[in-house]
């Protein structure tokens, strides 16, 4: 079970949070300017990476704030937690130590 560090409340159990999927997908400024395919890309298409992944979480049962998490989807290791609007941490040069 994950232990997630809310940037405000500190480390809490996974059960207090909800995952909001891939991070850094901005809503297009002018949806009408997009083709159906481009709109579909925004709506549905996700990287769903195997390995290091940037995603959004919200501290549902705590402060109800959204934030970003860098997590490896294979090891579940969390390498960074950063606030909404912040830039993602630079990709770690060294790949995650833990390979399963």
């Amino acid at each position, binding site marked *: *079970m*994950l232990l997630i560090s809310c940037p405000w409340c500190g480390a809490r*159990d*996974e*059960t207090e949070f*909800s*995952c909001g*999927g891939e991070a850094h997908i901005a809503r297009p400024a002018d949806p009408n300017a997009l083709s*159906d*395919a481009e*709109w*579909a*890309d925004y*709506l*549905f*298409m*996700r*990287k*769903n*990476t*195997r*390995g290091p*992944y940037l*995603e959004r979480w919200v501290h549902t049962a705590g402060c109800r704030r959204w934030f970003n998490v860098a*997590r490896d*989807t*294979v*090891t*579940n290791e969390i390498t960074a937690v950063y606030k909404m609007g912040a830039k993602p941490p630079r990709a770690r040069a060294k790949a995650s130590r833990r390979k*399963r």
Partner: protein
Amino acid sequence: MKGMTRYSIFSLVRNAIGYHEGWPRAWRSPEPRETYDVIVIGGGGHGLATAYYLAKEHGITNVAVLEKSWLGGGNTGRNTTIVRSNYLWDESAALYEKSLQLFEGMTPDINFNIMLSQRGVINLAHNLHDLRELTRRVGAIRLNGIDSEVLNTQQVKAMVPILNCQPDARYPVLGASLQRRAGVARHDAIAWGLARAADARGVDIIQNCEVTGILRDGGRVTGVETTRGTIRAPKVGIVVAGHTSVLAAMAGIRLPIQSHPLQAMVSEPVKPVIDTVVMSGAVHVYVSQSDRGELLLGAGIDGFNSYAPRGSLPVIEQQMAACLELFPIFSRLRVMRTWGGIVDVCPDASPIIGKTPVEGLYINGGWGTGGFKATPGSGWVFAHTMAQDRPHPLNEPFALERFTTGALIDEHGAAAVAH
């Protein structure tokens, strides 16, 4: 299927006399060749069924199934084995019914006892909303010519006497749907039986061969890069369940799929206590009892993307609490093993089967929590799609384009999990 020793009670007796030392291999272990007519990536049930039907229905036998690990070890080997065809939308009903019918003929077809046990699947309704949805579903299924019926509480109680049908239960049973032709099938047998049958028709099943790249030439697929070298083919099918996005990304294709862990567990073996399969999508309880006596239980998905085929304890705690509310007498039984699989979930809980923007590259994935029941049907339509380079009418609605047009086939219903 010339090359295949037939299994029967006679062959068993014959071999018993020889101390079972004369049984041949169920499938070969060939070295990969340089080129094939078709490459199927993924040696799960769907991939093997695809290869089998390519050979059987379309005469295409120069086929390789590439499996990164051991065949049948993906979700095919880790699901709760529920098979049914009682789906809401016409498109789904047609596809899953085709699959159930293929299952019904599969044991003799592949000469391998897949232990299809049509012991009936019951879906419970716990509130008025469930009940309304259930009526809608059963009506649709029946008008699609598929067997399904509505049960009232007394009828459910009669079929599953151990179910808590008290009116004051936290999850009262207000009714249920029943598909009598539905049930369970032995997951391993399906993978192994299909592998053996495909192999007998000339298909090369290559295990421990991970696809690491998809080769393209000007928008056309030309083969794959693997841990055992480059293998070429003009047609490549991706049938890798939880890893669909990973493989698609190798060809530059983005998909509307999220991979999540889904857990299941078995109890210690006990004497028969439950004959039917009972599902409650609302509270994530999926129970059946295997022929060996273990209770097989499914849980809900873990709420985040992950490729780690293990899950979190809270999911199981929640599942168990709901399970005991429905089956109080299970309280003193013991869980023997828990495990997880990685399921590929589409936004509308329906699969993607069809062509991709890359010519010669086909995709069959997004089955999420419920593709075991589709194994033969999926292989059948996908073989058709690959052989003819166009979808069969059964899988036409399941094209990737639906996410652009908006023509989703939303099978969520009440539950996020559809075993």
